């Protein structure tokens, strides 16, 4: 359980690591919207999403994301791909792709399935870039920043950020604890690996209860420690961590902004004025399928 490395923060020193978390959160949202912008012609959609994917791959190289980990988590999606394939093969949307010659099937299955998988991979890549290049704590600071205007309506944005950061801080500690309890209970004869659902459930209970007890004890001690060091959620605090907007933040914002803006414009144009067909524009004829 300790080897969950996928998506974990890496201590590298790349440009992407240096970006302001507040900026990264916005850029992430922009990119996510971008890959869901609709186009009428599917080949256009595919080409534009491909462009965004190429951009993401470059960014992943820049931020030294472990591609192996990414592939591994994509590999886990094979069942979903198979499932979609079967569904789309038998319930094709006949309106916009041609049938596969000599079969009752349509190319549409490949297209729609591929597109969904592509989008999932891209979503995964975007979040992976964010989490491997941003410390969880900086992410919370970023979120707190965006939540802080809500303070006006007495929304406890600081408390939420503090709670989140402490929860993040305690994840490794509680994982260690979980492993310890599993070992302790196994040595008492609890079997976590074999047996039916009912037996497994019983085994899990013998893990959860001690884990809860210890977590509550910890929280009690933690709150004492915080109180002794003068923490009061209601009073003002100064800040040790400062988020800084660098020139490279502006640069990144311009690039992502251009991608987002460009594709958004095209999409609006495509939906409202005239449908865009890149393949047709370049080759002067419709694609093969």
């Amino acid at each position, binding site marked *: 359980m300790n080897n969950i490395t996928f998506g974990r923060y890496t201590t590298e020193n790349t440009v992407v690591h240096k970006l302001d978390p507040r900026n990264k959160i916005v850029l992430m949202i922009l990119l996510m919207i971008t890959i869901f912008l609709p186009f009428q012609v599917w080949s256009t959609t595919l080409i534009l999403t491909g462009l965004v994917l190429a951009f993401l791959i470059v960014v992943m190289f820049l931020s030294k994301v472990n591609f192996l980990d990414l592939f591994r988590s994509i590999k886990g999606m094979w069942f979903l791909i198979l499932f979609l394939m079967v569904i789309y093969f038998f319930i094709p949307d006949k309106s916009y792709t041609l049938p596969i010659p000599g079969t009752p099937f349509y190319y549409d299955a490949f297209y729609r399935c591929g597109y969904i998988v592509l989008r999932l991979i891209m979503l995964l890549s975007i979040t992976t870039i964010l989490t491997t290049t941003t410390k969880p704590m900086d992410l919370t600071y970023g979120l707190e920043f965006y939540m802080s205007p809500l303070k006006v309506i007495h929304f406890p944005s600081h408390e939420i950020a503090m709670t989140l950061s402490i929860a993040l801080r305690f994840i490794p500690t509680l994982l260690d604890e979980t492993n310890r309890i599993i070992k302790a209970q196994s040595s008492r004869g609890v079997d976590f690996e074999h047996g039916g659902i009912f037996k497994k459930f019983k085994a899990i209970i013998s893990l959860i209860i001690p884990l809860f007890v210890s977590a509550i004890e910890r929280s009690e001690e933690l709150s004492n420690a915080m109180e002794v060091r003068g923490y009061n959620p209601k009073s003002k605090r100064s800040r*040790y961590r400062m988020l800084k907007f660098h020139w490279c933040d502006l640069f990144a914002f311009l690039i992502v902004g251009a991608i987002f803006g460009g594709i958004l414009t095209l999409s609006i144009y495509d939906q409202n004025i005239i449908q865009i067909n890149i393949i047709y524009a370049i080759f002067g004829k419709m694609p093969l399928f």
Partner: protein
Amino acid sequence: MNAIEIRNLNFSYTSDKKILKNLSLDIKRGSFVSLLGNNGSGKTTLTKLLVGLLSPDSGEISVEGVLLEKKTINEIRKNVVIVFQNPDNQFIGATVEDDIAFGLENRQIPRDEMLKIVSKYASLVDMSDFINREPSSLSGGQKQRVAIAGALALSPKILILDESTAMLDPKGKSEIISLIQDLRKNMPELTIISITHDMEEAALSDRILYLKNGEIVADDSPDNLFLNEKFVEENHIKLPFIYLLKKELNKQLLSSSGNTIEEVIKNVFKN
């Protein structure tokens, strides 16, 4: 001047069992006091009372001349800090520097000042090279040193260590002990109260308090306490090595024959 004055303190969690019975106690400023006692004797309870985490049934507590009341709790907490037993459960920040800064943030110290204080205390506890580390990549001893740095960064007048070495391995333990020794040399004004089950540690203090059934049954220097055979016997105290040695030497000295220094030494070390 006394750092802590306790008068007729009574406390119980539940009505059927008194944890502290009419306890009175003065602790001199700048002294290093060890508080001993069996599990459940009320040592932690006493420290919680001192900083107002619990409130007494009756009695008075003054810290640095300020009477502990509801409205003075914050003032008192500025003077007293506690380092607890479990290094994991008091590491609040995401990294070493964040954790040392936690208390400073609460006091609204400006950022540039905080940076200076954090690096000063990180180097004081010899953690400068680990300033960016997360707690999960630190040893127990290192985490505990960070906790001490975070406590000292608040420039307290009283430092309470509640079994701060109990969960550490021998190396971590001796690191903390030598850190305490350094503190005593470099901050003579700082009052240190150390709760411990480790007699070697207690032997280094100026004064030992022994808590039993809610009362202080012994209050003496390590020399007097550890060489008091009746008390040691009664409370099953495991003598520190140095006192075993002293006791043994004493016995040998008294029973050895000879009238000149040379003769005595020769006889003592013969067997």
